Structure formats: C-alpha cells, structure tokens
C-alpha cells in the first residue's frame, strides 16, 4: 500500500497537468480568435480607405467596398492632373505647409522642452516649485481661449490666412515648454551622482548639460522630436481658426476637411480625400514605425510618472 501511494499521486499530478495544458490550449485558441476579430475591426477602416483611394468609377461614396474599377485617377487629381477646376484642391501646397510646420516645430519645440525639463529636473533654485505650480494652473485653461487675441495679434503681423504657416509655428512652439512632464520624468531617472562627479572635476553646469546629460537623453530627444513633428500633422483646431478659410495657408487637416465639409464637396471629392489620406499617412507611419521603440518608451514613462 505504502509503495503504491506516491505512484498514484504522480499519475494524478500528470493528469492534472495534462488537463491544465488542454485548458490552456483552449483558452489560447479563444484568445487567438478574439485577437483576430479585434484586429480585423481595427484594420478594416484603413484597408477601406486604401481601397477607396483606388476607386475609378466615381468620386462620391458608393455602396461598393471593393472598387469595380482600379485606377490612379484620384492620386492624379490631387496634383491637378486631369481635373477641370484647378484651384479647388491645392494638395501639394497643403502638404508643403504641413511639412514646413512640422519640421520647424519639431526643432524649436524640442529645444524648448529640453531647456525647461532639464532645468526643472536638475537644478534647485528659488521659485522652482512656484514655477511648476504656475504652469500646472496655466495648463488648466483651455488652450483655445487665448486664440481669439492671438489671431488678432497675428493678423496685425500679417501671419494669418495665406501666411498662417508662420503664425501657427509661433503659436505651436512659443508655449510648448509647458509640455515638459514626460521629458522631466526621464531626466529624473538619470542619477544625479553623474552630474556631481563632473562638477567636482570642475565642469560647469553647461558642460554637464551638453556633454553628459544630452548624450544620455537620446531616447527622450527622439521622442520629443517625434511627438512635436506629429503635432502639426494632426492639428485641426488652431489651424482652422487661424487660417480664416484662405486655401493657400491651410494644413492638410483643414484643407481636406474643408474639401468634404459640404455634401457637394463630399460627392465631388470623397475618393480624393481617401487618396490624400493615404499620402498623408504613409510618411508619418513609416517614421513612426522606425522610431516606435522611443515612442513606446516615452509614452509608458510619461504615464508612469505623470
């Protein structure tokens, strides 16, 4: 009897493990099914946009998901090839506007954010806490509130309407240092002892910043560049308000929304909009996929440290 007992137990254990394994397999299959369904739901609209952009038979929404006739007509129309009304779609202009804004903003905003976050993270000075609380309170005002006066001021400087690009660059970047939180969280994690060691060796604070901290901050610099670059690509509210319906100054978001805002516009330009969407999404998506690692680091870090 006493000899049989352990054998019995091991058999039971095996059976239990086997049942656990099958149980796990079943749940895994269920999870796979859910994941497939969910990802189909998430991806389908994008596939539909792409399909729509190749639709050759009509420019308005039709009830066909898969186009009956594939053609590059819509892409050509974006660059005014084969269109009767030449001045309706100024896609190239909008694209360049957005590109200029994004590049300039990315550089200036990164500079601003780095200055602010490094100072607040590394240096202790009088009024530091006050400054942080002050910016916190300022951030609670809706950003759009100040647009009314900024638009008036910008119109005085001739930076709205057709020249909205420069006005918008100023608006996007001037106060961008207030978004220092993620970056400060990153600097907080770099050990202070490094700075102190360098300071003992006679380095100035500027040297510490440029020679020691900045090289280590590559991930956060790339993250800030990336988010700052993507900001103007997607901004709608400020751009729409500043641009004043002048088609020459629009960014892609405002331009495309303007194109299909009315039902006539929708009928005439729906497929053009889809083609434009594809062209806008491609460079951002490629950039994003390349730098995804940094983005994920920044986002999770930001969420963790608030």
């Amino acid at each position, binding site marked *: 009897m006493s000899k049989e007992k352990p054998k019995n137990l091991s058999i039971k254990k095996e059976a239990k493990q086997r049942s656990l394994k099958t149980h796990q397999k079943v749940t895994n299959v269920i999870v796979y099914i859910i994941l497939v369904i969910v*990802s189909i739901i998430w991806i389908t609209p994008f596939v539909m946009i792409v399909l729509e952009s190749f639709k050759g038979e009509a420019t308005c929404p039709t009830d066909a998901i898969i186009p009956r006739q594939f053609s590059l007509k819509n892409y050509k129309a974006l660059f005014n090839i084969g269109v009767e009304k030449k001045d309706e779609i100024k896609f190239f202009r909008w694209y360049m506007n957005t590109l200029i804004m994004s590049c300039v903003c990315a550089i200036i905003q990164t500079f601003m954010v780095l200055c602010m976050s490094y100072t607040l993270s590394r240096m202790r000075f009088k009024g530091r806490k006050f400054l942080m609380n002050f910016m916190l309170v300022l951030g609670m005002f809706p950003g759009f509130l100040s647009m009314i006066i900024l638009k008036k*001021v910008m119109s005085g400087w001739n930076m709205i309407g057709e020249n909205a690009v420069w006005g918008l660059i100023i608006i996007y970047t001037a106060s961008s240092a207030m978004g220092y939180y993620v970056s400060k969280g990153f600097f907080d994690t770099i050990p202070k002892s490094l700075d102190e060691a360098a300071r003992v060796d006679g380095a100035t604070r500027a040297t510490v910043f440029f020679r020691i901290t900045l090289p280590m901050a590559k991930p956060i610099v790339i993250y800030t560049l990336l988010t700052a670059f993507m900001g103007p690509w997607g901004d709608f509210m400020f751009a729409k308000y500043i641009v004043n319906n002048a088609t020459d100054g629009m960014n892609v978001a405002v331009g495309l929304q303007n194109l299909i805002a009315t039902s006539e516009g929708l009928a005439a330009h729906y497929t053009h909009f889809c083609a434009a969407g594809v062209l806008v999404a491609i460079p951002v998506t490629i950039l994003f996929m390349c730098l995804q690692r940094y983005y994920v680091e920044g986002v999770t870090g930001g969420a963790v440290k608030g």
Partner: protein
Amino acid sequence: MRFFIEKARKGDIMKPKTNKTTGTKKKSVPVRKRKSFAEGVKGFFKAVGNEIKSFFTIFVDGSWRTKLSYVIFGFGNLVLGQIARALFFLAFEALFFFYTIKSGWARILKLGNLKELTEQVEFVRLFNKDIHVELLLSIFSVLLVVVCIVVWRNSFHGSYRNDKLLKEGRKIPRSAFDKGVINFIKAVGNEIKSFFVIFVKGSWRTKLSYVIFGFGNLVCGQIARAALFLAFEASFIYYIINFGLAWILKLDNLGDIGSHEEYDPIFDTYVRVNGDNSFKILLYGVLSVLLCIVCIVVWRMSFHGSYENDKLLEEGKKIPKFKDDLHDIVDSKFHRTLLTVPAIGITMFTVFPIIFMILVAFTNYDGAHDGYSGLFTWTGWANFMELFNTKTSNLGYAFVHILLWTLVWAVLATFSNYFLGMLLALLINKKGIKLKKMWRSLFVMTIAVPQFISLLYMSKLFAKNGLINMLLIKWGFLEFPFDFWANTTASRILVVVINIWVGVPYLMLIATGILMNIPEDLYESARIDGANPFQQYMKITLPYMLFITGPYLLTSFIGNINNFNVIYLLAGGAEANSNLLTSGGSASDVDLLITWLFKISMGTESNYKLASVIGILIFMVVSVISVIGFNLMPSNKNEEDYQ
C-alpha cells in the same frame, strides 16, 4: 516605479492601507445591534438636541475667532492659516447668499404658490426648455439652503476644533496649498521690509541706485551690468512717457470716441476720423502694465545688487567682474539661461493672452462692439450674470446641458479606453500567445495614422449618404437612410464607440509597458494561494495599474473634457439643438464645452465676451476636477525618490 516595486516586495500592496483607491480595502463592518424604530427615533432626537446644544455652547465657549465664524464662514480657518478651507467656506457663503438673494429666495417662495409656478412653466415653454427646469431649480434652491446650514455648522465646529488644538498646544493641520500661500505672503513681506532696510543701511551708492538703475554697479566697475540697467531704465522711461502712460490712462473706460464721421468745411463732406480703438487700448494697456511690473523687478535687482556690492566691500572681498558674470551664465545661473527663451514664450503667448481674455469676460466685446467702429467697455459681472438669468437668456441652461454631457463623455471615453486597452494588453501578453510583437505592431500602426484622417473617414462613413447607410439599405435593414449625426442618442453612442476605436491602441501600448513590470512572483504566490485569473486581476493587476497610472488617468480625463478633435471632426456637422441656441450661436447635443467655445469664437456673432466666459468656466471645471483627482490619488509621489 521602483518605489512601487519596493512597496510590493514589502507586501504593502496586499495591505491596502497605503493606497485607498485601489479597491482592495475591505471596510471592517462594525457589528450593529438591530435597533428598534423607537430607539432610532430617540437617537435621532438626541442627536438633534446635541446639535442645538453645541450650537450655543460653542458660541459661549469659543474664542472670538469662533464667534466670528458664525457670521463669516471659515473665519476661524483663515486666521489660523488654513487658507484653502477658508477660501472654500467663503466662496460658498458668497455664492450662496448671492444666489439666494438674487433668485433662489423668490424660487423657494414660488413653491408655495403653485399657480404662479405653472405660469412660469408656460413661460418657460416659450423657450422650448424642459418644462421641469423651473421646478427643479426651486427644489435646488431649497436643497442649497439645507447644504448651507450644514456648511455653517462645519464652519463654527471647525473653528472650535482649532481652538481646542491651540489649547492643547498642538499644531494646526495645514495643506500644501496653505503653506504655499503663507510662504508667498511672507516672501512679499520680506521684500517690502528689505526695500526700506536696504535704503536705510545701504551706502550712498545704493541709495542712488534707487533712482539711477545700476549706479552701484557703475561705481564699483561692473560696467556691463550698469550699461544694461541704464539702457533698460532709459528705454522704459522713454516708452512710458511717450506711449505707455496714455494707454494705461485710457484703460479706465477703454476709449471715449471711436472712429466716426466728421464734417469737413473745406470739402463740404463728411470724412472718417480715426478715434480710439478699445482693442488696442486693452492690448497695449495690459502690456504697459506688465512692463511696469518688469520694471519693478529690475528696480529691485538694481538696489539689491548694489547692496550686495556694499556687503562684499565691507567684508573686503573682490567684486565680481564681467568675466565672472559670463561664467555664472553657464554655471551657477545656468538655470536662468536655459529658462529665458521658454519663459518669454510662455509669458507672451500664454500668460498675457489669458490675462487679456479674462479681462474680456468683463467687457462687452463682440462683433457689434469690435473696438474699432463700436467701442467696448467694462460691464462688470454682467456676462457672468447672464448665466444665472434664466428668464431672458438661454445661456445658463445651455451651459449646464453641455457641461453634463461633457462630464458624461469624459467618464465614458476615459474609462472605456482604459479598461478595454488594458484588456487588449492582457490578451496580447498572455502566456503562450505567439507573435506578440506582430499583434502589438498591428495596433500601434493605427496610432501612427493622423487622427483627422480616420475621424473624418468615420464621420463620412456614418453620414446620411455614407457607406453604412447604403449597405444597410442594400441589405434591406433600412428603407430610408438614417442620419446618425442628427439623432442625439445615436450620435452620442457613435462618438464614444469611435473614440474607443481611436484610443484603445494607445492605452494598450501604455498598459503593455506597465504590465510587463509587475513582478512575476506576485502572481506566483497568488496562484499558490489558489487565486483564479479573475481574482489575480482584481487583486494584483488592477491595483497595480491604478496605482501607477493614477496621474495618467487624471490627465486623460481632463484631455477628454477638452477633446476637440474627436467631437468636432466626427460630429461637427451634427444638427443644432434649438434649446441650446444662445447669443453666441447654436450648439448640438454632442458638443462639448470646448467645441462650443470654438463655435462661439468662429460664429458670425463673434461673441468674444461669451467665449471668454465659457473659457473661464472650463478652467474652473478642470481645476475642480484636478484638485479632487489629486486628492484621490493613491500616492503623491515624491519626485526626489527617483534620483
């Protein structure tokens, strides 16, 4: 993060004393004896009796502070430095009396006179409002009185508690806000003191520095500093005398005569004459005042700098030369160097516009009074009064209606994304699931596509002549196209659902990063204890996530209150609700406060005064939610912990 893991190791997570909101706290339910109804009534009367007794005893026993707290709510707190509480009490008292005297009392009286109330209801129908609004407002007024009595009781009881603490020689509890305000007042006091002390104690150089900026530096050989000071002073005086003073003086009524037509006797015609421009007066007036503040700061720097030189000379030390200043810029004062550009940007493009727009809320600046052809002027609190004036204006109703939907939307949008995103992350991270990276990239790709493309596409997909309607008709579910964006319920559900589609991948990304950091041994020990996956989720995963992402939840909640893109791009063309028609233009049932603000600013009326009122109200809503949120946060993490 490290902080949390250490806590977890110590087992603090399982003992949820430290984090109240994690939901794991089990309230110890005291064993209650069943009381008979009679006993309950008896107890109630006893409590009421005690309350009444304490009302008199506290008045007799209490200090003068407590006695005054009976009239001025929170006075006892204010004197003892509990400023946050005192402000709450005072604000409540002021608002309560203001509302009750202005309209609440009349409403309460109306409750007794039903006939008039029904007439009121008829009147309200003219405005197309919900007919119960007036009745609800009357009941609200009564409730407010009850709340006021409770607050009143808390006011003098609180003050009495402080009295007791003082008697026992214990410390009065103060919040961080209180300490900040007290420090600020102290700092201002010190500044004023030093102003006189330095003048009395300082050398003749310092005394002259009060008049001639940088004189002390000049005499001591700090030429560069002195030159900067002098240049500033000269240009400031030049500006103020020639322009600034005129602007500031006109601030009192923002201009007398606008541009108008005047008779020209030589040409015998009327010609347009430029007059005052209220907009410019307000703009340059405020800028000039800001410049004066800057000047005061520079002035302070001037005599303080000179006084420092005095001290150095007394101690026989060397006075820093220009070279030392340059070294300071990259070393001990490097923070100033770094902050200069961002600070200028924030002051000019955020602080100044906000000051300006707050001031606009107290004027009648709109399309008809644009400052040029029609001057605008100060109107006091009139724009805010319009909110309370339910008889002639629709504004208060529209605001409450839109605010409620904004809050509902923010709750739905934030938490639906949060939990579904976490669920997706859990599914992808589940043991035994292959191609994790592929799944993740699939969803991350949807983040990369600019939001406006997907949102506009979705909006048109559900439009009246969009694909969804066509398919539904083709397959025979519908006979006529259904306008999703014209239907309140449908459009509200749609924006929430589409927001899930837009936002879940983002949360999946965040949750993945955090979930991978949960120490595996926590789960193992839970499994040994026989916890099933759901229990593990409720006791480990969820508390951990909430603890770590508390601040993120708060910011994303506020982000959703101001979520312009999703609402405007999806439902910008939604049909306006005639009940929400105000002097600023129309709004739809899906509109949030921020899109309403946008529509008012873009509207043909250009009702800027209303826009700034709404902007200030959004600020108030957001700040109240932030304060509540911060206090709910499981831990106010100390930033020094990481370094």
